[in-house]
């Protein structure tokens, strides 16, 4: 029983991290219909920053990590995605892959394939024992950070003018522009927020797996993207729920299954993904509305 409870807590912890990634991807998609595969490389950049500032005070390292991710996201938007605005979503997707490929190889060339280790906040990886239950601090922190970020973002989107502009652009970009929403500012803002979320993800992930390699952010991005589509890309809430679900499932199943029978686990997960998409093409939580228009 206690091992089951532990798997649930680990699941919620990882689910929170994936939910944050899902918001980062979903926010940019909502505004400019871009599926940013290079999002993982923002997470990697933030994680490298933490690794190189391991000796510095945690506050400094984390502040620098946020700065790098936000500036990186803004530069990415300005240099790569602004010229592509209005291109077909397929072209934007492949372009974001090209940028992801480019950045991974820049990291490989600059920092080597052996990886750098992050020391910041390593203490959070220790566990507290409650009876037979062992909970790692990082799971608790991930849940709290995830909840605070999502709540803060919801308030921001619903209570501020910029948030209103963001939501309007996500609903109908052209009409929003006609009504006076400034496109460049809204898009830059969504990238900045997604960069900040990438930094938060990097802080949480490096506690659990401190070794930062050039492909550090790839897996979490691909999995979150799958979760986002399974949940329903159309709305931020359903995308976030999908991201949470896939993170929860990964950690929970990984804890519960013995490793000998888990070699075919990816096949089972992918099979479920296909089944969900066939039965609910608009997403698991999309409330029965199918995706009517082609998005990519």
């Amino acid at each position, binding site marked *: 029983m206690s091992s089951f409870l532990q798997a649930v807590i680990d699941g919620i912890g990882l689910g929170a991290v994936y939910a944050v990634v899902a918001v980062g991807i979903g926010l940019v998609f909502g505004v400019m219909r871009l599926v940013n595969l290079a999002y993982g490389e923002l997470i990697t950049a933030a994680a490298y920053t933490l690794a190189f500032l391991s000796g510095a005070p945690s506050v400094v390292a984390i502040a620098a990590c946020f700065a790098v991710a936000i500036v990186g996201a803004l530069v990415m938007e300005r240099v790569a995605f602004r010229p592509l605005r209005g291109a077909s979503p397929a072209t934007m997707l*492949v*372009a974001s*892959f*090209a940028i992801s490929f480019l950045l991974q*190889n820049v990291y*490989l060339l600059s920092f080597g394939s052996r990886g750098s280790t992050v020391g910041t906040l390593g203490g959070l990886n220790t566990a507290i024992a409650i009876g037979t239950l062992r909970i790692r601090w990082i799971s608790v922190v991930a849940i709290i950070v995830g909840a605070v970020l999502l709540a803060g973002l919801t308030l921001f989107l619903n209570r501020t003018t910029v948030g209103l502009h963001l939501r309007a652009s996500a609903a109908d970009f052209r009409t929003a522009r006609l009504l006076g929403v400034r496109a460049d500012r809204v898009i830059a803002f969504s990238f900045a927020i997604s960069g900040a979320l990438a930094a938060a993800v990097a802080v949480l992930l490096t506690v659990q797996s401190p070794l930062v390699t050039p492909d550090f952010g790839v897996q979490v991005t691909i999995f979150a993207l799958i979760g986002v589509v*399974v949940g329903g890309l159309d709305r931020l809430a359903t995308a976030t729920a999908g991201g949470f679900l896939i993170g929860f499932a990964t950690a929970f199943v990984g804890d519960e299954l013995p490793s000998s029978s888990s070699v075919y686990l990816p096949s089972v997960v992918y099979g479920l993904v296909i089944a969900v*998409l066939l039965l609910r093409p608009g997403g698991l939580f999309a409330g029965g509305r199918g995706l009517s228009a082609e998005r990519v």
Partner: protein
Amino acid sequence: MRSRLDPLVTVAAPVLLVLVVALLGANAGAVRKLEFDDALVNTAIVVALYVFIGNSGVLSFGHMSFVAIGAYLSGILTLGAEQKNFVLPAMYPFLRHTHVSTVSSLALAALAGGVFALLTGIALMRLSGLPAGIATFAVLGITANVISYWDKIGPGVTALALVPESGTWTLAIGAVIAIVVAFAYQRSRFGRRLRATREDPQAAEASGIHVHRERLVAFVISGALAGFAGGLLVHELGSITVDQVDLELTFITLAMLVIGGVQSVWGAVLGALLISGLNSFLNDAEQGVHIPFYVNLPDGSRLVALGVVMALVLILRPSGLTGGREVTVGGLRRAAHLWRS
């Protein structure tokens, strides 16, 4: 202005280009030859992708599963009997005891790719947009996972080695076959109907076109070509591992297609050959090369430069180098005119 010679020119241009590359490859040194062979196989794979993605406008991340199945089947069937008993003792007897020639193994690879595409396509072709992309990606995930661990159908994560290698001309003929099939399909009524659904699904459906069926036809032809190209790949390399036909190849070949121009055979062929050529050149440049002046790139910078070029082309020419146009008589005239002036 259209010319009656347009169809001929449209198919001849990419075929000629492939033959020129093959001619250069056949007369090149042993090391250089590998790079030309690689370019020819990439061409076949990208043309296979084009048949579905270019004509339907639906993105597929799953085509490397057909390439993988073609590569493994073709490789295993051409392996010598004693090697197979030694390397793959756990495999199903009918696979272990069958031995066929390279050409028949390529035909079987195409058949296997087509059948697998039919089985997955019946369900998946109902999807479009990003759900279709993710679902096809999931098919690739399953294929790679199963090939890695099921020792009754293949060597698992270890490499399938000692496969008989084919010469440059075999690979070139393979690429030409892929181009001709792609061209025949796009000229057929099936190809025209599918392109109508690409431009406007609602209008196409209203004109009595069955979107699901047209997509399925293209998916099966495309899957068969991908299986065939996988057979070429294993006979080019002489060995194969799962990693070679997984995510990286998926994205590189997709990038080749998009860079060339998604909506034409010419774009597919040009994209595949240019990026392969660039890759080879950068490989040389890491060793030091004279292109009037001496260039010597630091080790590992090849992939960075490749990424920069891919990103630049996509940012500056989002519809690809060819803009999705085929070679036509009118186009050639205009090009000749520009050349003279």
